[in-house]
């Protein structure tokens, strides 16, 4: 719970972009313990409570090395938050950073709220209010992006679903509590086995919601898309077509950075990260030297492939090779130049004339279908936005799991109700509503972690 300052928090403190180094910051009473339980120093010594720079490895739960890291230990009060702080510097990319972060959660810390490090720094007397305000202003200025607007609609759906689960749990609680508080009256309460069934229903709804974490990740970080095809097939034109309208609003997708080799296309609020645009933008009159090799590399990194073919000319050997490469991958085949006489018949392909913008809408729909298709948005609407939300849902899930175990162990109704109450409160935290238990963060809510 955000209000409790004695909990240890962790988060990735550097921008989620390709960079030479990434930092995970831990702060709080147990920061040293958490770090110690996932870190093996090269000297094999335990972490001491002193200001040190240590070299070693972060280990997975099975003892395998995740990454080689540098650890900075900063005991309170000589740290940014004036609490015990450990910073883990990793050379790995974002995936590695995430795995390390997950390990810190497993070891007892919880995801930091946005701005929580700064809030702690303030409440522990490290920053004055004007400094804090300044940081906040910078952060808040950025928030109103099209992406956030797109998310709000979906969030509304998620809030409703969580409210429904809460309502269901509340009803079960009422059933249990009525029997406890009015033992001598004939209360028509649900028997325990029916309560068990209903708990399972809520639990499976939470599991469904957890599946949407993937969508949240997509919305947050985008989908890596490879644009491949032989020279002159229209890759560059397609890129320009996709980029055209959204150029003005694609600049601020949290956690992604455009650099020389990536372009970001905003498709209905979902960022498509087009890989290796440098390759695509190679002027047509230059000989494309890297060819297939380059395509292979893009395909390896991509989550979705857009493969272009020229419908007006017979398929070449190169085209055949590309078709081989995209077999069993999430790919959309585009048959370009439909404005010219067609000689190719390619099953499951989309016919387009990129030059005249024909087939663009259909392509967009197909892309969305590919990205979100499996998650069945109609039946599973809304999504979880970040690690914090996912963590909340996991906690609620585990409380419901305990409730079931409590029933199965034959423990008394009171204990079932304790589990259900916790689950309800955890969900309340998601909605930021349960004021009776939680104090919370204000304006600081909007702070970026680790500023």
């Amino acid at each position, binding site marked *: 719970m955000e209000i409790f300052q004695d909990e240890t928090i962790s988060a990735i403190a550097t921008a989620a972009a390709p960079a030479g180094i990434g930092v995970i910051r831990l702060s709080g009473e147990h920061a040293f313990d958490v770090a110690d339980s996932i870190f093996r120093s090269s000297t094999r010594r335990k972490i001491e409570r002193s200001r040190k720079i240590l070299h070693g490895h972060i280990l997975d739960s099975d003892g395998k090395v995740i990454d080689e890291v540098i650890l900075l230990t900063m005991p309170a009060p000589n740290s940014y938050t004036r609490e015990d702080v450990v910073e883990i510097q990793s050379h790995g990319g974002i995936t590695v950073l995430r795995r390390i972060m997950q390990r810190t959660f497993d070891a007892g810390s919880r995801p930091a709220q946005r701005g929580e490090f700064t809030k702690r720094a303030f409440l522990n007397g490290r920053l004055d209010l004007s400094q*804090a305000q300044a940081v906040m202003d910078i952060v808040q200025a950025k928030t109103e992006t099209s992406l956030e607007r797109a998310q709000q609609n979906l969030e509304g759906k998620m809030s409703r679903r969580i409210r429904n689960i809460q309502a269901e749990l509340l009803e079960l609680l009422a059933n249990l509590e009525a029997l406890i*508080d009015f033992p001598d009256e004939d209360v028509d309460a649900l028997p325990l086995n029916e309560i068990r069934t209903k708990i399972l229903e809520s639990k499976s709804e939470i599991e469904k919601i957890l599946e949407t974490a993937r969508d949240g990740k997509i919305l947050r970080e985008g989908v890596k898309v490879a644009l491949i095809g032989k020279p002159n097939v229209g890759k560059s034109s397609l890129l320009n077509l996709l980029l055209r309208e959204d150029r003005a609003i694609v600049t601020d997708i949290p956690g992604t950075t455009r650099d020389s080799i990536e372009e970001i296309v905003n498709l209905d609020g979902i960022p498509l990260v087009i890989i290796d645009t440098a390759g695509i933008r190679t002027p047509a009159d230059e000989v494309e030297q890297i060819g297939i090799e380059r395509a292979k590399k893009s395909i390896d990194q991509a989550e979705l492939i857009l493969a272009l073919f020229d419908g007006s000319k017979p398929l070449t050997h190169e085209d055949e090779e590309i078709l081989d490469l995209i077999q069993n991958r999430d790919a959309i085949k585009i048959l370009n130049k439909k404005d010219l006489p067609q000689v190719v018949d390619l099953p499951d392909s989309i016919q387009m004339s990129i030059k005249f913008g024909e087939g663009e809408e259909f392509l967009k729909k197909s892309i969305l279908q590919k990205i979100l298709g499996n998650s069945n948005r109609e039946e599973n609407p809304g999504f979880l936005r970040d690690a914090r939300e996912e963590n909340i849902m996991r906690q609620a899930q585990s409380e419901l799991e305990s409730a079931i175990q409590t029933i199965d162990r034959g423990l008394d109704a009171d204990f079932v109700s304790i589990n259900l109450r916790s689950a309800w409160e955890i969900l309340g935290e998601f909605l930021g509503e349960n004021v009776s238990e939680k104090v919370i963060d204000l304006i600081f809510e909007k702070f970026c972690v680790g500023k």
Partner: protein
Amino acid sequence: MFTAGEYDVIVIGAGHAGVEAALAAARMGCSTLLTTLSLENLAMMPCNPSVGGPAKSHLVREIDALGGQMALTADESCIQFRMLNTSKGPAVHSLRAQADKKIYQRNMKRVCENTENLDLKQLLIEKIVMNDSGVEGVITETQEFFRARKIIIASGTYLRGRVIIGETIFDSGPNGQRPAMKLSDCLKDLGLKILRFKTGTPARVDSRSLDFSKMEIQPGDPILRSFSFMNSDSRLVEIENQSPCYLTYTNERTHEIIRKNIHRAPMANGIIEGIGPRYCPSIESKILRFPDKSRHQLFLEPEGLGTTEFYVQGMSTSLPMDVQIDFLHTIAGLENARIMRAGYAIEYDCFDPLQLKPTLEFKNFAGLFSAGQSNGTSGYEEAAAQGLMAGINAALQIHKKDPLILKRSDAYIGVLIDDLVTKGTNEPYRMMTSRAEYRLILRQDNADLRLTPLGRKIGLVSNDRWEKFCAKRDQIDEITKILDEKILTPSKETNSILKSLELDEIHATLPLSELLRRPDVTYEKIRSAFELPEIDDEIRTQIETQFFYSGYIEKQIEQVAKMERLEDKLIPENLDYNDVSNLRDEAREKLISIQPRSIGQATRISGVSPADISVLLIYLESHK
């Protein structure tokens, strides 16, 4: 007018709140005056003849642990004891006892009359005199002035009491008592916010006219338990010696009569303005609200040993007499029932408890306290708990000591008072176990362990009690130590012992206490095989609960520890919320009116958002 006396503490009203308040103040060395409209009616039970039940027995045991009186008097005045909820978890086990109302009153009066520093007087207080620095004293209807340093109002349902029986309405306290008509005007003039609440009580019937053979008998438990720690050695009694209760049910005919006459019910025709409690609905509102329910349970309780009066629980009503008689006669066993006292509804003035500090002193009136139904609660136990706390805090003020404020994690009493002064109430407030978020650690079986040391510190716990308490505490510690230190290795020898006890083998080294976490293991079961000392039931309950439920208990203790930090962040009493910019208007108003003592309390105020709390935290931080 003349000055008739001078006291440290004057308590207005000698019901369950007033009695505890006066006893606590007097026992803590304050010269105390306990006033009542009628000395015949001290500690009267105008409603049901029972003490305890879920959450209420928790309160009674907490009162006892702090050095209050209710448990001791109930133990010697009750004629049947039952432990409820025994199959629903140790935290909600609840003792309920049927009281002999008259014996209870007589015993309580005897205790008061034998308490040093305590005067009892039959008086009607009409006015509370205040000056700029606080309370000055009270003026009676006979124009006597009593000077007081602290005043505790425990006026129950007497303030502008109005009784309604069908179309008959008259000014009255409960049970035909005199009402106090003038005092609430005086309090209103002082500027107190007054609420108007309603409650009701069912008819009493003559047991000679009842056919118990048509009802279900409900006897007491074979083992007589007690509320007070001082009487905790359980004794076997003959069930026959306990007065039983009886169950019967309403039926369609009953409901039909009520439905046909519903227009004559005061709650339906608008005669009653007061707000009644949801958990104690009249039979007419039960029938209106649950039309599908074909029967409602009634519970017949004896009012005492020396009377034929029986209380018909579940039948609270304010319908006119002819209707009451008609529908009673449709019920199995009550076909010929003769009503001895009519059921009635009563409306009364009480204070909005949001005006109180957690000490139960009014925020704007130094030295003026209020406890019990006058704070919008319902129930003898709730009243007694508040009376005790008001008495303690008035006395602590006299002695210039820090107040005693129980946290929500300390006691049900803490939950009760925190709810009242933080959330207020819009119906008579009744304690329920579901109001206590930490109820697993607030068990009635550990009330003594939780609170006796606090009672000792403020001087309410006698030497005998303290010695008995220390012995129990030490024994629990000793047994816990033995169990933790005795290590079992997975040897053949150990496992053969386990096998002989029909328990699963162990495969790793573990302390003996670990075994007690298993659902099929009890202390008795492993006692002789592992050469453990013999212990009595009380200790065994503590040991088994502590280990068997340790996972749950530890989790709750963790939650408490987290919350504690917020509770410990105190807000200065003179904080000017108008100076805190960025608070939303609603939050500012609420904070000004409630003046929470701590950030923890502020978080529980409805209408104060997390953002407001953060604003407040930042303000406090930057104005340190």
